[in-house]
């Protein structure tokens, strides 16, 4: 059984069909890329998968469970983590706090235990912190744990977002253009990081414009154009697919 099964997913905004009848499945443990020109509906697709938007039509099954209609925090709780194209860290928190807060749904102690500060509470706070530092070490940011998140350089903020997504303990991670705005060296490091995520057993769905990234690490690619899936396959097939070339470069001019 596939980890994620999307059937006939459609999202319309008024008359605009942002995603139309998208059907695909994502097998466990792979790097799955979604590509397509700007405005193809890639981010809308992510928003539907994470519960930020409700699909107009269609079904989404994650580990066999129907997630349509669930709130974002419930879907996160099921095991889907995510990063954004425009970075959305919590700017007025420290790097460490950003990661600690993401373990919210994974811990039990609530307001009552916080007030009485029982043993369980103190123990739990300590273990949250310990785990947060592990995630920061994974993305190589543990040295900056105490810094305000907003003071980090751009590339570090992107990695912080990944650490924070990891802290929600997802089985599936959605990365929305993680290499956007990165220099070639940072992009190369990012590719290594994504590969390490996979080795760690995470399944990854990647939206990316940088074709070297996409073709280099993807196991499977789907191509969206104007909300419609126009192709899918392994990188070599996608590169040779005329429909894909046309979507990106326009129809070949013939005499």
């Amino acid at each position: 059984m596939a980890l994620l099964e999307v059937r006939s997913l459609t999202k319309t905004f008024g008359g605009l069909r942002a995603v139309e009848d998208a059907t695909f499945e994502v097998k466990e443990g792979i790097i799955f890329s979604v590509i397509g020109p700007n405005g193809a509906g890639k981010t809308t697709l992510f928003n539907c998968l994470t519960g930020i938007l409700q699909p107009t039509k269609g079904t989404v099954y994650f580990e066999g469970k129907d997630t349509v209609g669930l709130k974002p925090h419930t879907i996160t709780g099921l095991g889907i983590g995510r990063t954004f194209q425009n970075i959305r860290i919590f700017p007025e928190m420290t790097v460490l706090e950003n990661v600690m807060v993401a373990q919210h749904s994974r811990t039990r102690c609530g307001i009552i235990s916080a007030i009485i500060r029982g043993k369980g509470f103190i123990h739990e706070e300590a273990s949250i912190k310990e785990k947060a530092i592990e995630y920061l070490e994974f993305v190589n940011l543990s040295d900056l744990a105490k810094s305000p998140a907003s003071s980090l350089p751009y590339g570090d903020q992107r990695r912080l977002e990944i650490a924070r997504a990891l802290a929600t303990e997802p089985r599936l991670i959605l990365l929305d253009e993680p290499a956007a705005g990165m220099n070639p060296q940072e992009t190369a490091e990012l590719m290594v990081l994504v590969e390490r995520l996979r080795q760690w057993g995470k399944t990854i769905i990647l939206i990316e414009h940088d074709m070297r990234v996409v073709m280099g690490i993807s196991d499977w690619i789907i191509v969206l154009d104007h909300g419609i899936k126009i192709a899918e396959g392994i990188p070599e097939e996608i590169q040779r697919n005329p429909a894909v070339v046309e979507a990106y470069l326009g129809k070949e001019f013939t005499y």
Partner: protein
Amino acid sequence: MFFQQIVNGLTLGGVYALIALGYTMVYGILELINFAHGEIYMLGAYLGIIFLGFFTAIGLTHSNIILALALTFVLSVIFCSAYGFTVEKIAYRPLRNAPRLSPLISAIGVSIFLQNYVMLAQGTTDKVFPHIFGSSGFGLMNARITYIQVFIVATSFVLMIALHLFVVKTKMGKAMRAVAQDKTMASLVGINIDRIISMTFVIGSGLAAIAGLMVAMYYGLVNYFIGYVAGIKAFTAAVLGGIGSIPGAMLGGIVLGLVESFGASYISSEYKDAYAFALLIIILLIKPTGLLGTRSIEK
């Protein structure tokens, strides 16, 4: 005289700060000025009279006054928190995605409703809060300090420190800050936003209830419109400190209390209410974000 005004100002300021915290926390999370917040404070004062009256009737106040008072505080806090929780649920939550003006008008509606509800239930005449501490006190540095003043200052500072620790240190506090900074992202890291918003109203209302009770004990008189002036003053304190900022609300409340107290004694008590607003205008001219406010992000 000088020290006396410091004590009076801190007493007043502690109360303003407790109410201001409710305004600022709700604003920080929903960008809503909860005009009904002053009424929660008023309800706290009335509930105090009701519960204390009940404990007096059953003889508990006579046999164990500390227990009677403690129970009065706890019950008033629970009831006011329930009011705050309910108000958010029925008056603000359905308007979460409405234009910003809608919940504001809804808040004014709740405020008018609660005032009239208390007026109908409790009458238009002042209610007397039982004298418990009386006016007993002690002298210190030429000032006369009553025990109730000590109680108010101590309680408000302890509560402020506790709230600060809660917000900075605990998991729920971190979740609250995350929701204030980016609601969508907060939900994507697994935080149930609705629960955090409810919790914010519960905490803010609880603090307002304690403020209402303490003021009722201090002045001895309660009526159904005390929430209006106290609400406006506390809102001023929140704006003064930088709306949305929790330490700002604390500082704003204290500063406002001191300014009022000093203004009333050194200039004229006729203009007692005007000092607060004069100060607000001056601060906002110099620093539009308030004393501790950070930049405001337009979304």
